[in-house]
């Protein structure tokens, strides 16, 4: 009997719920976020007010929100999943129409004091809806074509809306996140094999389309692909970012150059060093020990979520927990692969570490839902 099962003969109620939260998960999240504050402080050159302090404030708010959400009974999430999905869909339409333009893409809704990025919300809403769908669906029908088609449409509708912003990174994340939900729910592996084959064909077609009048991607997206395939081909142009990122990462060695001693970031060789490329600064300043430590923290978070999900007898709660963990996994795996040159550069932040209010808050709230599933699991 582990501490997770301590006094769990009964579902806790009231303030007692706080004792039954998945506290290791809370500490792991705080540890990752702390690494983030440290790196934000470092890349700002010691000016905490630039990034580290606002990030800390949002983290505080996010933690409170997480604890608050842990009190919410699990049935509530199932009940609002459809509404949440529809609201997010509406927001995505809205952002395409009146969205705030940043860096050549409309991703933001300006709501006075806060800027909202509905595509981030949608990732969670999609997980909720798919969890509710597969909870509702008879296990026997999961792999039937019609019942496969419905979640596919549920995934592709917001994906399409995000794609026109345009935000290739997030739309791919939605597809991958939704796909993993279907995988966890037990959809036949044949479907996944077929999709992988289809995607392979599509990639081939996309590459073929370059330079023709039916070109399927923007020029800048093609250039990113080129750069990914051979960053050294254009080290001062499109390949500059990835080349410099890899130099920073590799030059860290075993133990790094020391806190605030990374030349690549301090001397501005690194691009977007406080957002998507923050991992390279960590790698440069803390070396292999630092990067493997962070990777281990991420892996532990996944492990605790997996354990929580597998020990939860509520199908909805399990699916939900696994889905949110998978989304989290996609974030850091894609971000790290990107800065290490394993994937092309797509705009995906390093979860809990990169500077960004919406992303941090939504992640913490998502883990609030995971906590809610954990606290309120049937005994």
């Amino acid at each position, binding site marked *: 009997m582990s501490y997770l099962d301590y006094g769990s003969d009964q579902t806790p109620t009231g303030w007692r719920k706080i004792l039954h939260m998945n506290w290791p998960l809370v500490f792991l999240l705080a540890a990752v976020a702390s690494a983030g504050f440290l790196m934000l402080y470092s890349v700002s050159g010691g000016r905490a007010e630039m990034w580290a302090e606002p990030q800390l404030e949002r983290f505080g708010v996010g933690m409170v929100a997480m604890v608050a959400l842990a009190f919410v009974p699990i049935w509530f999430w199932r009940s609002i999943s459809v509404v949440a999905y529809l609201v997010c869909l509406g927001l995505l339409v809205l952002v395409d129409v009146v969205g705030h333009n940043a860096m050549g893409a409309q991703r933001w809704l300006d709501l006075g004091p806060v800027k909202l990025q509905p595509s981030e919300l949608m990732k969670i809403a999609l997980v909720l809806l798919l969890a509710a769908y597969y909870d509702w669906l008879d296990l026997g029908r999961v792999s039937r074509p019609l019942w496969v088609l419905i979640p596919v449409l549920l995934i592709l509708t917001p994906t399409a809306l995000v794609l026109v912003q345009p935000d290739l990174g997030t739309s791919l994340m939605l597809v991958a996140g939704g796909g993993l939900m279907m995988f966890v729910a037990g959809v036949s592996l044949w479907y996944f094999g077929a999709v992988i084959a289809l995607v392979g064909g599509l990639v081939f077609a996309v590459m073929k389309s370059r330079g023709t009048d039916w070109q399927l991607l923007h020029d800048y997206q093609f250039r990113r692909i080129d750069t990914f395939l051979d960053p050294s081909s254009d080290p001062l142009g499109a390949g500059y970012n990835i080349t410099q990122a890899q130099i920073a990462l590799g030059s860290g060695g*075993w133990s790094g150059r020391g806190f605030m001693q990374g030349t690549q970031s301090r001397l501005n060789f690194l691009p977007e060093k406080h957002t998507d490329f923050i991992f390279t600064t960590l790698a440069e300043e803390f070396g292999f020990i630092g990067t493997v430590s962070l990777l281990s923290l991420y892996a532990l978070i996944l492990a605790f979520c997996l354990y929580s999900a597998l020990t939860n007898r509520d199908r909805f709660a399990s699916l939900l927990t696994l889905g949110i963990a998978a989304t989290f996994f996609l974030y850091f795996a894609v971000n790290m692969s990107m800065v290490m040159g394993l994937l092309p550069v797509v705009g995906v932040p390093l979860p809990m570490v990169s500077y960004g209010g919406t992303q941090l808050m939504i992640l913490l709230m998502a883990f609030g839902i995971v906590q809610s599933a954990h606290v309120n699991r049937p005994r």
Partner: protein
Amino acid sequence: MKKSAREIVESSRSITRRGLMLGGIQAAVVATLGWRLKTMQLDRAHEFRLLSDGNSIKLRLLPPARGLIHDRNGIVIAGNEANYRATITREEAGDPAVVIARLRHLIPMTDTAVAALLADIGRRSAITPVVVADRLTWDQFASIAINAPALPGVTPGSGLSRSYPRGGDFAHVLGYVGPVSDYDLSKIENPDPVLMLPEFQLGKLGVEAKLEPQLRGKAGTRKVEVNSAGREMRELERIEGEQGATVQMTLDAPLQNFAIQRLGEESAAAVVLDVQTGDILASASAPTFDPNLFVRGISGADYRALMEHDHRPLADKTVQGVYPPGSTFKMVTLLAGLDAGVIDGGSHFYCPGYTTVAGRRFHCWSRGGHGSVGPVQSLERSCDVFYYELAQKLGIDRIAAMARRLGIGVRHDLPMSAIAEGIAPDRAWKKARYDQDWQVGDSINSSIGQGYVLASPLQLAVMTARVATGREVRPRLVRAIDGAAVPADAFADLGLAGAHLDIARAGMDAVMNGDRGTAGKSRIVAPEWRMAGKTGTSQVRNITAAERARGVISNDQLPWERRDHALFVCYAPVEAPRYAVSVVVEHGGGGSAVAAPVARDILLFALAGGLPPLDAYPPGQRDGIAEMQARMRLAPVPVAQAAGRARA
């Protein structure tokens, strides 16, 4: 919708199965990421570390301080001065126009200069420092430094720049330095990277150019960290360069200064040699120019003025200028005759004022003739006919050989620019040069230093020194490099009979001190400094028979550039020669009237080691000399600095 227990178990199994599969996938991905981190951060760390350092660490060169040049007394004649300047960086200045407007309260700047500067600042990148003001006085520099808070982006700084504290005195010998041009670089194979520095100064001419390797020194290095925009963030390491060697010249600064002053406004040259060591004590070419103008970047107007000046101030007349030596060449012909045995000390020729050869009449300068003339009188009275007759018996080749033996028609190797070889003509030379046979008239002209003969003032001084000592005196200009003395050569004997040399010396003595000497007026009466000399007046035009019939026109009536060159060579003291002097005054008129007094004054200054006492002069001239000495504006002699290494 209540689920059955079977369904719950079924669902739980399915989720466990797929959840563990997902966990496996995630674990595989995490392992891949970890493996990638290991290869990049551990296996290839060294490679990336090099790339990272290459990104951010740049090696910057520090220009070395140029070696100093001293005169023989240790007086600095080419030094380095701090060049105070202010630079502005647009990024830090914000609005450069406002900052410069404030700067104008501190230092004078013209409207056009400001407009040009602002355009320049706009063109450059925001982080490139642009020089706003150069060669500031210390007060201006200090006021900029004090007002720094009101002048964002303005950085006062200093570097070293060549300076020639003695002004134009050494302009021709030392030459000058200047910024490295593309042309300079194109001439150098494998140029020293320090040449690429914008502030680096390269020797362009004269000693500065010839001794460039010694004077340059070794560049220092600075390791600096730069950011991605190339801006220097901090200095990591600094290795100071090595200053170039201090070069001590044989020149004597006070004497050089006196010589320049004494030549005055004339287009003239004077060389003073130490006959024992060959040291060039003075090498003066007038008019001169201020080499500091070239270091600072000479203005177009100043440069045009120098180029268009008919006295050619930029040319070094002491080694580049070649002149028909006129009668100063007579020692050569005389010694050639004596050495060949064609004449001896008792030989005489009769001078009726002219001689006729092959139907052509060659005149002596004395229309009335000198009567019977022996070797000593031939020099004392500068009889031309004596040499016409001698040359016919001697032949040109033996005269030319003697000329080269005495240093004329030979290139003397000195670290100076464009040293002329002069011409000691002979049959082979004329054949090669003009494809013509030598004529007896050519020999006659050459015998008195006219015709094809050309010599530089340096060569005339060398000739005089060789006659005075009988040794193969070779001139030298560098006395010591970095405190190590350049050994003086022991000069070989010329192989001329002492009796022959004594005849030539007696003739030169008689020129000054004889009853009928051509330069008796310029004698030195102090017995210990008794001097010997020889006048020369060389024609720069042919006097036609028709002109001669009308009577020779006096020089005063001719335009300047057609007047005769005035020459004089001399040495002293007669008994134990120490110094030899040659003076050429271009288009000056007569050698005895114009060149001799100048040469005497310079020689006396060398002998006396300063302004000579008036009682060295003949009594009647002393008032005039005193007045002249008072008029001269000689540079003050600085307290002699210890020879050796002085840090700039």
